[in-house]
């Protein structure tokens, strides 16, 4: 599903449940040693079906912001709404994909994909069908009854994606989901993941430290400043070279726009290598 169709569904208001509103969110946390201001006054609206990425230097609070959207952390001030309703606890509307697959080695691939359905006490027959369908779509159909140890890193992360989508969340949060993979696998998986997520019509927030990943995979890139994390700038990723459609992540990397965006974002990130 490409941009036109997404715009159409958004216009019809069908997927209004997928809108994310981040309203003036701040986070302080305390340890015995110190008080830390991790995030400060972050406001951002994410449209239904939009892919947004958060980039920034390590420690800028991008993963923290994702945890707040997911409802596992409570903001000190402000609030996050998904589909108009405030997020206060982990919600079935939100799927979260972590840096590594964290597949349970004692469960088969299919049972791993069904973890969320089991936790949320969903209809297991229906969930089973959906999980099998998703695993097949991710190219894992022949591994349903195998154990994770038989799988390579890329295959494991595909299973993790199926696990995230089995509970059919409106919003999918990706926390550096490819950082544990080698570089060839990353490129291949990025295409597949974007493809599956667009087809499912999800709203996506991606946290990454990889500028290329942000440009090629998402519609909008949000640059966060150093701690305390604030929104430094927003950049819309448009690719006039492929009129009428969004290039796949792999194609995008070869387009002239890619380098321009890369340079802009590199300057924005203001990277200083210390030592």
């Amino acid at each position, binding site marked *: 599903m490409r941009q036109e169709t997404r715009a159409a569904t958004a216009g019809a208001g069908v997927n209004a449940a997928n809108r994310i509103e981040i309203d003036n969110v701040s986070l302080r946390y305390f340890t015995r040693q110190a008080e830390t201001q991790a995030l400060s006054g972050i406001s951002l609206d994410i449209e239904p079906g939009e892919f947004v990425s958060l980039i920034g230097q390590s420690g800028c609070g991008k993963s923290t912001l994702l945890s707040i959207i997911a409802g596992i952390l409570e903001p000190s001030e402000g609030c996050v709404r998904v589909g108009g309703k405030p997020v206060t606890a982990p919600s079935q509307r939100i799927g979260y994909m*972590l840096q590594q697959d*964290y597949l349970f*080695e004692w469960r088969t691939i299919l049972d791993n994909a069904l973890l969320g359905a089991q936790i*949320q006490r969903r209809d297991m027959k229906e969930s089973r069908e959906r999980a099998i369908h998703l695993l097949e779509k991710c190219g894992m159909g*022949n591994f349903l009854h*195998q154990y994770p140890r038989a799988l390579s*890193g890329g295959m494991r992360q595909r299973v993790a994606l199926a696990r995230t989508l089995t509970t059919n969340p409106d919003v999918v949060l990706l926390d550096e989901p490819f950082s544990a993979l080698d570089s060839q696998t990353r490129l291949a998986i990025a295409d597949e993941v974007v493809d599956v997520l667009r087809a499912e019509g999800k709203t996506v927030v991606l946290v990454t430290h990889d500028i290329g990943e942000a440009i090629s995979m998402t519609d909008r890139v949000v640059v966060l400043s150093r701690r305390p994390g604030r929104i430094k700038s927003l950049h819309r990723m448009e690719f006039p070279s492929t009129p009428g459609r969004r290039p796949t992540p792999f194609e995008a990397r070869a387009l002239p726009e890619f380098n321009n965006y890369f340079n802009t974002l590199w300057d924005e990130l203001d990277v200083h290598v210390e030592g």
Partner: protein
Amino acid sequence: MSKADPREQIMIIHTTTAGLQGAGAQSQEAQAPSPAYAAYLRRENRRQNLISTSRVLLLLAFLVLWEVLARTHVVNPMLTSYPSAVWPTLLDLLREGDLAWHTWATFRATLIGFCVSMVAGVAIAAMLWWSDFLYKVVDPFMVIANAMPKIAFVPIFYIWLGAEYSIYGMAVAISVFITIMVVYEGFRGIDPNKIKLALTLGATRRQILSMVVLPGSVPTLLAALKMNIGLALVGVIVGEFQSSSEGLGFLIINGSQVFKLNIVMAAIVVLALLSGVMYLVVARIEKATVRRYS
């Protein structure tokens, strides 16, 4: 599903996405072994046989030495007995039905003590995992209770619990504290990101315990099991010394009181076999289960 099927699939994915390990290793096995590889296998087998043979020889040497030293009165056979005297005693005890009965009594008490201490240990460890506050409060007491020589309680247990239950009590007392500590450490050792994952899917604390922490701790639980079987046996034998009229512990203490070392030695031989067999059974279960957790 046939064996070749998934591998074929792996090859297909390999060509489409790259970045896959492990597919190459299997395909090499199909080729005929090189002479160097065959020689390597022969060397490995020979080494394995040598180890097995040496074990048998070591046991035989021990028995022969025992026999010879006792027969030549280098050591006093009254105090040590010797294999050719123990063997008829063993047969006698077996024929009269006593030995099987005593062995069964010890085995049953060990099994009961060991089950109670596993269940209690895991339950208490789960409570400590649930409440960090509780853990912090009881931790020093647990350390002291574990370090304490529990054998000091044998007479007290006898008074408190009576002849039968003091034996179970001893088996539990010896093994339960270390079980709690080992299992708790296992629970704590679960990757926090696996718990985070369950949390993002909306899991309650109870679900995290039953779906992540407990199944994820199976290797630890089995290690605790293996350790416990030996400890429970120690508790039972010590308990039987004090209070029982049956069991291998009773045979040992009774035999030594009437100075029949043949009986003592026969009971010890059976005890060694019993603990060996129980350990092997648990080790076998462990091996079969843990494979899935690699």
